[in-house]
Each structure stands twice: as C-alpha cells, then as structure tokens.
C-alpha cells in the first residue's frame, strides 16, 4: 500500500486544491493520518472507497477528540539597551495567546477486499462553540451511522447529512457533551468514605466545618 504521503499526492492529483495535510504520528506505532477539510471530505471519502487500487470499504472506527482552547505562554528574549548606557540587558518577555481549540473526528479506514490499512482521516471543526458542523460520512460508510451519533452525543459535533442525528447514549433533553474535557459533572455530592481528588474537594466544600459533626449532607 502507499505511504500516507503517496496517498496524499494521489488524492491531490485527483482533487487539486483539496487541502490535505499529513499529520505525523511520532509514536512507535507510526500510524500517520490525513487531515481533510470539511468541504471536500465526502468526495475524498468516496474516492478512497471506490478507487480500485484503494478500496477502503470498511470504516472501522469513528471517534471524536476534544482539543480545548489553550493558553500558550510564549517567551521571547528581547535585548533591551540599557538606558544608563551599560551593556544591553536580555529580558524575557512573556506574551499570552489563546490557541483556539477544536473538535476533531477521526476515521480509521481499512480495506477488506485488498487487506490493507489503516488510513486515518481527521476532520476538525473551526471551534468548539458555534461552528461545530462537519460533513457526515454515513452515506459513504454505513458503519459511521451510530458512531457519528455517539460523537454528536458526547462531543457535540454536528454532522451535516446524517440521516438520523439524535443523542444515542444519553437521554434526549440532556444538554451537556460529557466527553469534552471541560465538562463539569452536576454537583450531587454524597457521603463517600474514601474521598480523593475532586471528591475530596467537594467533601471539603460540602462540610466546611472540619468538626466531625454527624449531619446530613446537603441534598
């Protein structure tokens, strides 16, 4: 099978200007992936499925990944001339910037007919709040149907063109997307005999007085 770079070139030759980036994977697994743009994703997927030499007929795994907004502190060294006329000082300047996060959907493709794979496709939303629509690949691979619903449910990615986009694991009427990294559970603290971490923090919050008074916790 082609390497990822060859595959990208092959796709670009067929779809010039499709905007395909190879995302390298530094781990020993070396399963590199292709980052697609939302606009051309479905055409590329169809091509991958139907092109005789590729025939990625099975979309094995679909999953979401949440990359929250990150505050990045850039440190730059600036040489300031000393107003007193001494040797110029090297001062570290820190500037903060927020790298916008995104929701990412990852597809693992295999070919049952030709027995090769995986080819990993990634799609990213523009941000995590209002612009979270991606094209659904369910019309290309039926196996995406439930898995995309799951990504919609747990991550909040909206798949345009999905035939039946409803919550799948949580109940309808549930409003959160619990697999996002910034999801906060509702505070239904109950007495827990072995508190740790967040639970311990909650315990402290619910029992502000350290006295071991036998009182019921707040409902």
């Amino acid at each position: 099978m082609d390497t990822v770079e060859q595959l990208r070139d092959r796709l670009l030759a067929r779809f010039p200007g499709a905007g395909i980036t190879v995302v390298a994977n530094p781990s020993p697994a070396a399963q590199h992936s292709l980052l697609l743009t939302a606009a051309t994703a479905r055409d590329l997927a169809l091509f991958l499925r139907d092109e005789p030499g590729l025939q990625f007929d099975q979309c094995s795994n679909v999953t979401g990944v949440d990359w929250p907004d990150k505050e990045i502190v850039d440190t730059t060294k600036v040489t300031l001339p000393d107003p007193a006329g001494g040797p110029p000082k090297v001062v570290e300047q820190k500037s903060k910037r927020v790298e916008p996060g995104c929701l990412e959907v990852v597809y693992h493709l295999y070919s049952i007919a030709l027995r090769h794979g995986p080819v990993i496709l990634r799609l990213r939303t523009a941000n995590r709040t209002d612009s979270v629509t991606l094209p659904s690949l369910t019309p290309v691979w039926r196996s995406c149907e439930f898995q995309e619903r799951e990504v919609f449910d747990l991550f909040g990615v909206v798949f345009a063109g999905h035939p039946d986009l409803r919550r799948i694991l949580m109940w309808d009427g549930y409003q959160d997307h619990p697999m996002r990294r910034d999801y906060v559970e509702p505070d239904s603290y109950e007495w827990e005999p072995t508190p740790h971490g967040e639970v311990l923090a909650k315990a402290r919050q619910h029992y502000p007085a350290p006295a071991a008074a036998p009182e019921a916790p707040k409902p």
Partner: protein
Amino acid sequence: MLGTGLIKGLAVTAKNLVGSYHDPARYTTLEYPEVKPKLPEAYRNFPFLVTENATDPMGTLRCVACQICEKECPPQCIYIEKSKDKKPDAAGKPQIYPAVFAIDTSVCMSCQICVEVCPFDAIKMDQEYEIATTDRFGALLLNREQLAKPNSYYHQIHPTEAVEVDARLAEERRAAEEKAKAAAAAKSAPKSAAPAPKPPAAPSAEAPKPPPAA
C-alpha cells in the same frame, strides 16, 4: 425424515436425565452452603493488610502508609492517613504507620493492582466472599482493624505465594541489616535501610499537551 432431528435432541436430554443419577459429569452441582467451593490459590476477593504478629495486629502492620496503593487504585476506594509519629515495626525499626486505612468494599473491584504496586508486600488479596450484609454503610467500609490479618492467614490462603514473599522479605531484611552494619562500621551513623518508595506519578494533574498530531 421429519422428526429425526427432534428425536436426536430428545435422546440427548434423556441421556442427561438418566446420566444425572450415575454420571458425575452430568451432575455438576455443588450444594453450596454445605459444600464450599474449592478456591484456587490465585483466587482474589478484596484486599487485606498483612500483619506479622497475630497477637498485636496494629503494632506489626507491614504497611508504612506510603499511599502508593491509594494513588494507583483504579476506583479510588482506598483511603489512608499517615500517622504523625513513628512506631517500631516488626523488625523494631521506627516507621510511619497508617493512622487511618479504610477500604470501601462497596466500591472495590478486586483488581489486585494495589497488591501489585505495593513495594512492602503489605497488602494482599483475601479470599473471603460470604460477606452479604444488610448494613450498607456500617459493614462495607473496612477499617484498619478489620483489614489487618496475620501472615499465618496469608500462608493459609496463598501458600506458595506467601512462602515466596517471606523468603524475599527475609532476604531484603538480611541485606538491609548487612548494609546497615557495613554502614555503621564505615560511618558509625545509623541510616535508613528500607527501600524508600518513589513518589508515584500524580494522575492527570497536568493540562493536556498540544495535540500530538498537530
């Protein structure tokens, strides 16, 4: 012909019906309250704390409250508070001991990870399973006193493993003593001999790093 398959099936059940009266392979019931199951040595159900001496369980706990098991426990069902003072352990060396050691058996999944990560062979897996109770909060939270069981009990339930552990501990103790002696001879200054546990990695404290793929 229609019916042969049915008759074959009926023959199988008839064979089992008759077989249940004379063939042990076709009568597999162990009548539980009277006949207890023969548990394999490896069987594990809930942890317990090993003490060296049955007469003074609290004084001879092997546990030194290093809290590794507490941090590694997947469902976070162990709770330890370190003592403020030190007490001599079974070998007579002053050690920190667990002032509070609680395991919530209503959460524990008997995965044995606490046993695997314990550097002191202080926590081992029990084989007790008849623990159904009507008392949710009182009976299922085991404290230090309830968890402490003597080494002889450990020998009883995991004989081969316990012998290995004893040998290893004796070896460590001997090595430590020799080292201490050598050190004392060299510097004539006391030195801690027990292997100090490395502080384990704090779980999930850091903010996520940039996307590896980006």
